[in-house]
């Protein structure tokens, strides 16, 4: 299940839905990302390329299913204006075993945080500015290359 849009989500309900769908999953790993209120951030404003985002996330979810024996994947990503504390991303992966669930969940998060077609603005008291692409995150995604 992949969803990208402005609406908030209920991590609990998504976790339950994934587990129900995944059948005999022994392991469910999840990641929930929240906007951090560092350095006086008032909000993050996320823009994306809708047709490309859904297509690319689906492609990476399929890639995760090729690499690991998975029973289900949920990816939810929000866009629009998000204030500190707000949920921004949720990835949940069900598998028979914990290692596959953890690794696939990290793989999808590294992809989303680095290569997914999102652009972020930081809104502060002094104004709003575009976030530059980061190199350390790039390194995180690079480790999955092969």
């Amino acid at each position, binding site marked *: 299940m992949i969803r990208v849009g402005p609406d908030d989500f209920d991590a609990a309900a998504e976790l339950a839905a994934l587990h129900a769908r995944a059948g005999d999953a022994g392991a469910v790993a999840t990641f929930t990302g929240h906007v951090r209120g560092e350095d006086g951030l008032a909000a993050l404003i996320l*823009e994306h*390329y809708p047709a490309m985002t859904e297509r690319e996330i689906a492609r990476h979810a399929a890639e995760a299913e090729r690499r690991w024996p998975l029973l289900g994947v949920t990816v939810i990503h929000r866009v629009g204006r998000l204030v500190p504390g707000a949920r921004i991303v949720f990835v949940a992966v069900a598998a028979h075993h914990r290692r596959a669930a953890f690794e696939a969940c990290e793989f999808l998060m590294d992809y989303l945080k680095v290569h997914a*077609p*999102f*652009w*972020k603005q930081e809104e502060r008291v002094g104004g709003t500015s*575009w976030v530059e*692409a980061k190199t350390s995150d790039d390194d995180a995604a690079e480790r999955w290359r092969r």
Partner: protein
Amino acid sequence: MLYFAWVRQKVGRSEERLDLPAGIATVRALAEFLERRGGGYAQAFADLKRLRAAVNQEHVPFDSALAADDEVAFFPPVTGG
């Protein structure tokens, strides 16, 4: 064409349609054509190293070929979610 992030802001719109001008065969040539429009376009396309492109929702290098009806998008490097 689709424009995102500060490219969108500089050109002043998020999308537009364009019949491919004669002699414009690559993404780079299209970007240079847009730069020659001047104003916000000139600012947005002044330095292609700061830009990335996609054709039909796939990331592509600037030397990729273009065809009629392609969906071309210009944007800064993605910052992820």
